[in-house]
């Protein structure tokens, strides 16, 4: 459940982060300010409070959601804000010549954004994405507060029923550590192996 929630959130968050980046570069003041406030809010409020907010506010507005949906929405929106901030550096780092060559090839601004700028920005900020994946994996421990049974919640339940919190929480910690070490190792391998980094 931990891995499932984390990976879905990372992907949803990534899509949303790209959308936020597009808004920020759209030149439309309404969209720019929406993206700005969104990013500031989700980076400025503890994830725990965000989850409580989504879990309680949406039903109060008449939208009931399962624990899983709440967890996914909360984690995705939060990571979207962080990933958008990471991507900003990537988008700024795309060499202008690559955009000129796309213009000369007849790409529309939307096509240039989708097929040239976004893939290059993603590639340039790949290490930050791996980092964010690890952060979200750790942050997913919080979704137990909205009632989702994941690794940390399972450890809590076990600790309560066995009266052995020490070995149980320690094991939970080790499992997180192991997953993160694997993610980090894959990330390092991929960073070396993936093509597509613009020349310096």
């Amino acid at each position, binding site marked *: 459940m931990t891995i499932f929630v984390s990976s879905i959130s990372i992907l949803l968050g990534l899509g949303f982060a790209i959308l936020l980046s597009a808004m920020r570069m759209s030149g439309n003041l309404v969209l720019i300010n929406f993206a700005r406030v969104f990013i500031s809010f989700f980076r400025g409020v503890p994830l725990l409070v965000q989850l409580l907010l989504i879990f309680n506010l949406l039903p109060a507005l008449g939208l009931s959601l399962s624990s899983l949906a709440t967890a996914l929405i909360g984690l995705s929106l939060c990571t979207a804000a962080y990933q958008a901030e990471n991507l900003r550096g990537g988008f700024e780092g795309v060499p202008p010549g690559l955009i000129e060559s796309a213009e000369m090839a007849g790409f529309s601004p939307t096509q240039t954004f989708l097929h040239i700028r976004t893939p290059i920005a993603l590639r340039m900020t790949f290490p930050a994405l791996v980092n964010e994946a690890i952060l979200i994996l750790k942050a997913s421990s919080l979704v137990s507060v909205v009632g989702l049974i994941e690794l940390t919640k399972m450890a809590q339940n076990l600790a309560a029923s066995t009266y052995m919190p020490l070995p149980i929480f320690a094991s939970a910690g080790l499992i997180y550590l192991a997953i993160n070490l694997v993610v980090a190792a894959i990330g390092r391998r991929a960073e070396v192996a993936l*093509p*597509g980094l613009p020349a310096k």
Partner: protein
Amino acid sequence: MTTPAISVQNVSKRYGETLVLRDINLEIPRGEVTCLIGPSGSGKSTLLRCMAFLEETTSGSILIEGEPLGFIEKDGKRRAQSPSELRATRSKVGMVFQQFNLWPHMTALGNVSAALRRVRKMPRKEAEERAMAQLTKVGLEDRAGHYPSQLSGGQQQRVAIARALALDPTIMLFDEPTSALDPELTGEVLNVMRALADEGMTMVAVTHEIGFAASVGNTVCFLDQGKLLFHDTPEKVFAAPRHPRLEQFLDTYLDRGASMLK
């Protein structure tokens, strides 16, 4: 009289206080090779970039095969072209950059076929066949699956030429295509350009390769401090007695193939 491929009319360009182009008038005839030479800072690259509307002129206008580039004149009024109108006018022009500007996340084949697929909406197979034909033309069919980072500078520039040619431009612009290359790699790029000239492509090249300008160019234009000092056939331009500024310029490029002119 046929309309020229490009006509540059009273073009001036200013960056803040500095005038980088001063009232340039020039006609690029079809099917010929025009080389722009001059010291760095003379405005030759800016002029070329204006011909692709990568830079906007401060005043004056540029016509591509008789059609205005970047603006539309209607009932005596002038307005900016919309992005799609601009793309239509610009589609006649292919551009090759000093820094190649290949897209690093696509293979050579991907770079050449991308616009065919995305802009011309060609099916993938057809686009890749045409792209392959262009890569063959520049001698890189066996490098189609390589990413730019796996290619030498000369190979990257040849891919960039193939990418521009794939869109069937009638005019090719070259912005110092060999300046970023190690000297031993310039030859392969110049050979591709020479072959292209032999096919009758209209070409405008900003270059420091004086030898290329002298042997392939039909016209050589000499720019200095934003002014087009003169333009003529290479025989006349390089024949003694030369203009003192040109003489001075050639002296600094003696090691770059200009020695053959001395």
